[in-house]
C-alpha cells in the first residue's frame, strides 16, 4: 500500500469511529427530559431516584451482557458489596457520600476482578450458576456476620450532605434524585465513550464470535476480565447510591431477585445500546408500582406474564445474540 492509501484508510477508519461520537439531539433530549422531571415532580423524587439507581444497575449489566455477550445472574453480588461498603464506611465515620461512593465501587471492582476468571471456563449455564452462586454466598456471609452488616435487621445510616452542600435525607429527596442522576450521567458518558472506543469495538468482536476474535489476536480473556471488573464497579456504584440515598441497607440487596429483576429490565429495554437499561428500568418500576397498587397480592402474576410474552415474541438483538451463541453451546442442536 502506498503512503497515500494508508493515510486514506486511516482517515476513513477514524471517520467511522468518530461517526457516533457526537451526541444526537435525541440523546440530549432524553437526559434533559429526566432532569426536567426531577424538578417538575418533586413529590415523585423517591420513585425517580429508584428508577435512576436501577437504570445504573441495568447499565452495568449491559456492559457485560449487551456489549460483550457474557451472561450473568449474579450482578447482585456487586450491587450488594457496593451497598454494604458504602453503609459500613458511613457507619464507621466516612459519611461524605461521594468519597464513600468511590471507595465502595472500587471495592466492588476488586471483587469483580477476583471472580472474573470463573467466567472464562465452561458454558453459559456454568456462568449463570457461578455468578448466582457467588452472590448467594456473599448474601450468606452478610447474614452470618451481623456484627458488621447488622444481619437480618439491616443497617440504618446517616449521610452528611453531598460535597458538604446538598443534604440528601428525608427533606432532601430531590437532592438525592439529582445526586443519582449526576452519578448515572457521568458513568453513562464513560460507558458511551468506552463502547465507541477501539476497546469497545473489540468487545463487540468478542460477543459476535469469541473464537474468531481470539484468532485475530484479540486477548479475549483479558478483555472479559476488564469489562467484568468495570461492570462490577458500576453495579457497586448503584448499590452505594441505594444505601446512601435511602439510608438503609439490608440483606435483600444480595437476593437472587435483584439479579433477575435487572436482567428483566435490560430485556425490556433492549440490550446492547446502553440506553436499554434506563428505559427498561423506567418501564419495569413504574409498571410494578402501578400493578402492585392495583393488586398488592397478585402483581407477580402479571410481571411473570409479561416476561413470558416478551421472551416468546423475542427481542431483536436478543435473537441475534442467541443465534450466535447457539453455535458455540449446542453444536448438536437440530434447530
Amino acid at each position, binding site marked *: 500500500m502506498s503512503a497515500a492509501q494508508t493515510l486514506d484508510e486511516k482517515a476513513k477508519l477514524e471517520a467511522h469511529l468518530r461517526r457516533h461520537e457526537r451526541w444526537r439531539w435525541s440523546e440530549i433530549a*432524553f437526559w434533559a427530559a429526566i432532569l426536567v422531571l426531577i424538578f417538575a415532580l418533586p413529590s415523585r423524587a*423517591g420513585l425517580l431516584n429508584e428508577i435512576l439507581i436501577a437504570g445504573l444497575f441495568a447499565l452495568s449489566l449491559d456492559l457485560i451482557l449487551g456489549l460483550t455477550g457474557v451472561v450473568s445472574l449474579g450482578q447482585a453480588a456487586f450491587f450488594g458489596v457496593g451497598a454494604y461498603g458504602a453503609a459500613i464506611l458511613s457507619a464507621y465515620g466516612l459519611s461524605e457520600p461521594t468519597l464513600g461512593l468511590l471507595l465502595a465501587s472500587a471495592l466492588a471492582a476488586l471483587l469483580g476482578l477476583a471472580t472474573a476468571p470463573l467466567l472464562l471456563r465452561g458454558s453459559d449455564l456454568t456462568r449463570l450458576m457461578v455468578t448466582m452462586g457467588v452472590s448467594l454466598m456473599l448474601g450468606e456471609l452478610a*447474614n452470618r456476620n451481623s456484627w458488621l452488616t447488622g*444481619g437480618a435487621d439491616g443497617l440504618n445510616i446517616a449521610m452528611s450532605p453531598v460535597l458538604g452542600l446538598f443534604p440528601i435525607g428525608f427533606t432532601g429527596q430531590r437532592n438525592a434524585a439529582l445526586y443519582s442522576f449526576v452519578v448515572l450521567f457521568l458513568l453513562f458518558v464513560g460507558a458511551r465513550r468506552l463502547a465507541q472506543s477501539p476497546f469497545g469495538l473489540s468487545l463487540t468482536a468478542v460477543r459476535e464470535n469469541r473464537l474468531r476474535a481470539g484468532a485475530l489476536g484479540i486477548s479475549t480473556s483479558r478483555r472479559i476480565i476488564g469489562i467484568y471488573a468495570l461492570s462490577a464497579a458500576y453495579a457497586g456504584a448503584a448499590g452505594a447510591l441505594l444505601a446512601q440515598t435511602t439510608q*438503609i441497607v439490608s440483606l435483600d440487596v444480595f437476593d437472587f431477585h435483584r439479579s433477575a429483576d435487572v436482567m428483566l429490565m435490560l430485556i425490556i429495554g433492549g440490550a446492547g445500546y446502553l440506553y436499554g437499561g434506563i428505559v427498561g428500568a423506567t*418501564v419495569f418500576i*413504574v409498571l410494578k408500582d402501578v400493578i*402492585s397498587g392495583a393488586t398488592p397480592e397478585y402483581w*407477580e402474576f402479571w410481571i411473570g406474564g409479561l416476561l413470558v410474552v416478551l421472551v416468546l415474541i423475542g427481542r431483536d438483538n436478543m435473537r441475534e445474540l442467541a443465534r450466535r451463541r447457539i453455535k458455540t453451546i449446542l453444536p448438536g442442536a437440530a434447530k
Partner: protein
Amino acid sequence: MKPNYLISGLALAAVLASAPAKAGDDTVNVGLILPMTGPSASTGKQERAGAELYIQQHGDKVAGKTIALIVKDDTGAPDVTKRLAEELVGNDHAAALMGFGLTPLALAVAPVATAAKVPEIVTAAATAMITEKSPYIVRTSFTLPQASAPMAEWCLKNNIKKVVTIVTDYGPGVDAEKWFGETFTKGGGTIAEAIRVPLKNPDFAPFLQRVKDDAPDAVFVFVPSGFGAAFMKQFVERGLDKSGVKLIGTGDVTDDDLLADIGDSALGAVTTHHYSVAHDSPENKAFVAAFEKANGGMRPNFMAVAAYDGMALLYQSLEKTKGATDGDALIAAMKGAAWMSPRGPVSIDPDTRDIVQTIYVRRVEKKDGQLYNVEFGSIPNVKDPYKASKK
C-alpha cells in the same frame, strides 16, 4: 437499535398521571404498609384483615373525620418500605403509618416518621429496640422479651432445670434467646446450648438432632409464624416428644393460624404469648366470630389482633384530639391510652410508647376436635423488660 421512545414515553406518562390520593380537610389517610407478597405474606394478609375489620365494625367516621385506609405492599424490602412511607406522607399526606411486618422494615421508616412528625404504629415487628428509634413510634404488637422472660419464670417454677434454646437467627430470635436465657440462668437454671437457625430455608432436622444429643429437660423454641409446622413435624419425627423433652417457647411456634395444619404433634406444648384465639372473653368471642365471617372462616391470629388494636388506638387518639391530625398531638394522645382488646386489657406505656399487656401461659389442647392454645396462667401488665432494664 434505536431506543424505544414509545415505551419510555408511555412509562413517563404513567408516572405523571398517577395521582396521589386526596387528603381533603375531612379525610384522614392512613398508610398500611405490609409485606403482601414474599415469605411474610401471611402476616400481611392477617393484618390487613384485622385493620379492615375494625373499620367495618366501627364505621369509617371518627371525631368528624373519615378514615381512608391505603394498603401498600413493600414485598419485605426495606428500601421499598421507606419509599412507600415517604410517598404516603409526602403525596397522600398520611396522618399515620401502620404495619411493618419485620424489624428492618420498621427501622427503615423511623427517620421518615421523625422528620415528618407522623406516628408510626408498629403492628407486627417484635424486636425490643424498635420503639427507641423515633419518638413517633408506637407499638401494638408485642416484644419478644415480653413473651420470653415469663416463659423462663414458668420453667423455674415447674422443675425444669436444663434447657436448650433454638431460635431463628434474626432480631426477634436473638431477643428471645437473650431474655429467656438471662431470666432462666438468673433463677438458677442452665442453658445447655443456644442454637441459632438461619432465617431462610431452615431444615430443623440436624439442629434437633443436636437437641436430642444434649438431652435437656426442655427445648425453648422461637421461630417466626409460618415455620411452626415444619419445626413441630421434625420434633416428632426425631422422637423428641417421646424422649421426655418438653417443648416450650413463645406462641409464634403454635400460631393459631397454623395449629390445624400442625396437627396432633403439637399437643401438650406449653407456650407464652399475648393472644390466643381461644381466649375466654366476650370481646374476643365477638372479634373471632366477626373475623371468621368476614374472611371466609379464616382464624385470626396475633397479627390480626395487633392491627385491629392499631386501628382502635388511632380511633381513640383522634377522639382525644378531637380530630386534629397533628403528629405530636396524636402521639401525646396515644401515650397512656388503655382499652380492652380481644386479647385482654392493654395500654400504651407513656415512657416507652410500647405496649403493656397480659402474657398468658398456654398449653395446646384439643377442644371439640380442634386444636387451641388454652390459657392456664397469666401475668398481667407486663412491660417490655428490655427497656425496663435500662432504667
